[in-house]
């Protein structure tokens, strides 16, 4: 299936605090913009794949959205394995198109935790509350601590990821946080759950995003401007809660990437630019190891020395990522990958022809990988 499906259009809302906007409204706006970008009408869409809003789970949410859009899709619904859902749904859309189940699919997400419900961001972990074990940052901090103790990974190396993302977001006019961060400022950041500080944690954001998937052949027929080829995709599930996970520093990103790279016929050395899910600074570091950009335990050395910045060997999160552009759970990373492949990114990587995008959910429970090309 390499290159048989394309992303034909992308769209998103503003990012940040969007007072009074429902997730239905945010999805509808993002989808309208993605359809306009692809140059197609909504009546041509017959697949609708919707990420469950993180902020509040609703039964039959995809049908509520379809009604709001005036659509009766042949295939689709809500998919939920956290932030990995976006790329997983893009892969299901591509497979559905290949199997003749639909012709044009929309994949979308919207979330409003900044001004709406924070239901799914509740902090309790149940009976372990009595030990003071709360919140999402603590789970990632457990993983970061083990990685630092086992492999000698340093705070400054995590800082290299944060400063790269913040630097890229600073020049992105759509970014929620347009404030670059120096390594010195990063060192002074307030501890939340050690070893992680405020600046290791992503933003909390309202917003919506959508992409249009169709076959390459259909894109040619419709004369879509600048379709971006889907070269490979894969998934993996680590499944165990952090407490029970046999090895804290390895994740199913490895199996996800193997599947995607095999499908694409590519290796990490062939990748020009990377959009790696950065809900916490430790995540891109472990993802780079699991993807095979470097060996396990060497992620700290790999990310140092400017490698991840524009002009470096592997520019990372060129729109700012979850740390700077928007904390929305992931589809915006795919949109930035598309912009890079079209040559339209704000921080364009000169001559970039391949982009890898990662999405993950839970506390590195789920993972999906997408490889895009020109």
């Amino acid at each position, binding site marked *: 299936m390499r290159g048989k499906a394309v992303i034909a259009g992308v769209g998103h809302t503003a990012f940040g605090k969007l007072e009074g906007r429902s997730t239905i409204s945010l999805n509808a706006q993002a989808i309208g913009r993605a359809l306009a970008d692809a140059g197609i009408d909504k009546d041509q869409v017959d697949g609708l794949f919707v990420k469950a809003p993180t902020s509040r789970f609703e039964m039959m949410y995809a049908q509520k959205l379809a009604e709001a859009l005036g659509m009766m899709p042949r295939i689709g619904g809500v998919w939920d394995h956290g932030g990995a859902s976006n790329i997983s749904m893009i892969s299901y859309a591509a497979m559905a198109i290949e199997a003749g189940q639909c012709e044009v699919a929309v994949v979308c997400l919207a979330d409003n935790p900044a001004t709406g419900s924070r239901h799914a961001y509740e*902090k*309790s*972990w*149940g*009976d*372990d*509350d*009595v*030990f*003071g*074990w*709360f*919140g999402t940052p*603590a789970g990632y*901090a*457990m*993983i970061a*601590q*083990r990685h630092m*103790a*086992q492999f000698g990974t340093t705070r400054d190396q995590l800082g290299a990821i944060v400063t790269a993302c913040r630097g890229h977001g600073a020049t992105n006019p759509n970014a929620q946080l347009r404030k670059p961060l120096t390594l010195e400022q990063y060192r002074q950041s*307030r*501890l*939340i*759950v*050690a*070893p992680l500080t405020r600046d290791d944690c992503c933003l909390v954001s309202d917003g919506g995003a959508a992409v249009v998937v169709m076959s390459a052949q259909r894109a040619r027929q419709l004369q879509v401007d600048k379709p971006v080829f889907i070269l490979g995709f894969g998934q993996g599930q680590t499944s165990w809660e*952090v*407490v*029970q996970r046999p090895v*804290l520093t390895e994740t199913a990103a490895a199996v996800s990437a193997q599947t995607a790279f095999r499908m694409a016929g590519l290796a990490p050395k062939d990748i020009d630019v990377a959009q790696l899910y950065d809900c916490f600074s430790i995540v891109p570091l472990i993802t780079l190891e699991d993807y095979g950009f470097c060996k396990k335990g060497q992620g700290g050395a790999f990310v140092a020395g400017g490698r991840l910045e524009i002009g470096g060997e592997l520019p990372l999160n060129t729109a700012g990522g979850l740390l700077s552009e928007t904390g929305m759970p992931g589809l915006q990373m795919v949109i930035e990958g598309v912009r890079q492949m079209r040559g339209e990114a704000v921080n364009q990587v000169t001559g970039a022809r391949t982009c890898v995008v990662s999405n993950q959910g839970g506390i590195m429970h789920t993972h999906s990988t997408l490889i895009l090309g020109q």
Partner: protein
Amino acid sequence: MSDIDLPPPVRTDLTAPYWDRLQEGVLTYQRCRQCGHAWLPARTECPACLHDQVDWVPASGRAHVVSWVVFHMAYHKAFERRLPYNVAIIELEEGPRLISNVLGLDDPNGLQIDQPVLLRIEREGDFALPRFVPA
């Protein structure tokens, strides 16, 4: 740590044996009668072989630290005056893992991965909690 305002565990039919034995000063874990796999927290089926006949077995109390964090912000009022405090993933020598606190340290961050620790059961209100100290 001896406040009584901590957010208490929810005692259910499934977890009652665990909390009752802790009141008696014994930490127990579950072991499958069919395949011998051992685990915490309580489940109705063995995650290794899916058998539903499981026993509660006393732990030796010997364990080690898998990883730990130190909270510098309180997510619940009861922990405000305990800051900073550690939370650790503890692996019993029999294999099961649990979330706990390691006490008896000058610095709550003064731990190492794989460091041996020993069980110390502490009373907190209506519950007895399995905590640990350096071995």
